[in-house]
């Protein structure tokens, strides 16, 4: 399957294992619940990713962030907005530097907002044109406020000239 990663279309190398399914070779993601239950065995593997639902609390995961190379945030609908805050807090407050991925009802018009909140890979909905979605990042170049990017509050930027 193709995904957008760092603004390029790439093949997804991860396998996403449901709760109760056996683990497979190679990089896998599991739910937060499974991670918390099987942390000891899972952390012995190489690349491990954890999937977060919108209502999941980040607190439970904070101590483990260094062991996790991918966090997948779920957006069950375009109207779901909690993942933006999750991503931003992971980046700016908790210093997470691994990959953060958006999955679910993810399309063109959410991407630049998601990117600004620190999400760097995107599973664009299958029935949507992934190349078309790539165009989203440059649509609005002006950013008035800081998020998880390097932006400066517009009023500071004007003062700095």
């Amino acid at each position, binding site marked *: 399957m193709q995904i957008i990663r760092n603004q390029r279309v790439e093949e997804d190398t991860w396998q996403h294992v449901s709760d109760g399914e056996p683990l497979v070779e190679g990089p896998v993601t599991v739910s937060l619940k499974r991670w918390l239950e099987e942390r000891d065995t899972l952390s012995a593997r190489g690349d491990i990713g954890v999937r977060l639902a919108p209502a999941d609390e980040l607190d439970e995961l904070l101590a483990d962030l260094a062991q996790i190379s991918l966090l997948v945030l779920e957006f069950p609908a375009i*109207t779901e*907005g909690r993942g*933006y805050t999750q991503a931003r807090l992971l980046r700016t407050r908790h210093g997470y530097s691994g990959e953060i991925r958006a999955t679910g009802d993810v399309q063109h018009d959410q991407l*630049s907002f998601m990117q*600004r909140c620190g999400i760097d890979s995107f599973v664009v909905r299958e029935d949507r044109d992934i190349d078309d979605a790539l165009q989203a990042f440059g649509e609005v170049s*002006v950013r008035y406020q800081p998020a998880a990017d390097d932006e400066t509050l517009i009023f500071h930027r*004007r*003062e700095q000239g």
Partner: protein
Amino acid sequence: MYRYDNYDQTLVNERVAQFRGQVRRHLDGKLSDEEFRQLRLRNGLYYQLHAYMFRIAVPYGLFSSRQMHTLAHCARTYDRGYGHFTTRQNIQFNWPELEDVAKIMEELAKVQMHAIQTSGNVVRNVTADQYAGVAADELEDPRPYCEILRQWSTLHPEFCWLPRKFKIGVTGAAEDRAAIRLHDIGLELVSGENGEVGFKVFVGGGMGRTPIVGKVIREYLEKRHLLTYVEAVLRVYNQLGRRDDNNKARIKILVRSLGIKRFRKLVEAEWELSRDDGLELTTTEIERMQGFFAPPDYQAAGNGAAELEQQMAADPSFARWVKRNTRPHKVAGYRIAIVSVKAPGAPPGDLTDAQMDGIADLAERFSFGELRSTHEQNLVLADVAEGSLQALWEGLKALELATPNIGTLNDMICCPGLDFCALAKASTIPVAAQINEKFSDLDYLYDLGELKLKMSGCMNACGHHHVGHLGLLGVDKKGSEWYQITMGGSAGNDAALGRRIGPAIPIDGVADAIEKILVLYVELREEGERFVDTVRRTGIAPFKERVYADHP
């Protein structure tokens, strides 16, 4: 007023191009109706009963003559020759074609206007006291902070999909004319213990189907922390606000279910962690923004006051207009003039393209080229020299915008109702006409004194009926239109929700019922007592008895 720089202009231009792309993808079948709906709402584009409806932002109700001319041009070119001013100080057009909307946006962008975030579950147009900067009872002009909030909230990446819409209102005056206690966040400029001006912060107010008066979350907030604190409130709301039921998703429901103490604790804890994240304002930045709202070049008073007095003595109908439709100005020699968009026979808040052009010219001649829209759906020329009032009045009369009815029963707030709105349960415009017809005697209206009538065609309460001294709520009963009457509400410092006086009455009987209420008020009132104060003193029981006497 605020002027765009290159950043602002680029953002608005790019947003137009982005919208064009969204329309194209929709027409190409790459965005479903529902997906396109979610996106177009973020640019103020609704689909209503008969056609698209396009809502344009008038940030904190302030705009220029040039911008008004553009609105007139758009009304003429892309609509049916009129526009409607809303209770969020915005303007909406009821008949644009989808393929024209991007063109309208382009025309707006040329005069530094846009429709960004006039709908959708985002931070909406920030509203303010319509007399900001000129009111005698003002501590400080709220508009610089409104503009700071506008920019911070525009395309905010974290808060672009909130549980529900989010409204912020700001005032700097002693009398709350911006209904800040009925906002998701209300901000009042106040003096702190050290004498410095900061904000008192209210949260969780709102109307709609669950009306709630906002609570104080913070007695005093330093100005430099305006954005850090508001962002902390939004972040808590974005995480915890309900998303399972649209009717329970506003912040007021969250604040009510947690209780203000617990909600405050959560916000303060979040704020501790995030207040240094780069949103703190410097004094220089605030002063720079204040510079955009510096007073115009007022002339010394001269003998305008004496001249005005003579003119009023010579012309009673001019005198009546001055008395009813103007307010004191903080600068000697000037008055605030209110343009009544409540002429009998015209839908409240509606202006034709010719009226828009005409009033833009009058603002140019008599009020430094600036206009304001009010949440009570009138317009204001804020800086009129006393000696110019008569000429302004003549001009307004010619435009049929000089009805001397501000503050009276006929100066009612009214949503578009069943004639235009897909959500409405009852029509409002014919009820307004019915009331105007019944109460056409101005002297009678003046005798009744201040009386705020607010009417909504459904429980979403766009017409603010909960906070009317007299409130009217349209309901549907087995396919026919009925109205519930509430009494005793207020949107001001004494904010309160009106109480229902009894079962709904048929739409044809609304004006008659109001008449019964008013007759009883005149019997019951004490010397100089306002309608709402009488209702508070006597309770609603006597009114209920009178209205339902014949129909128990």
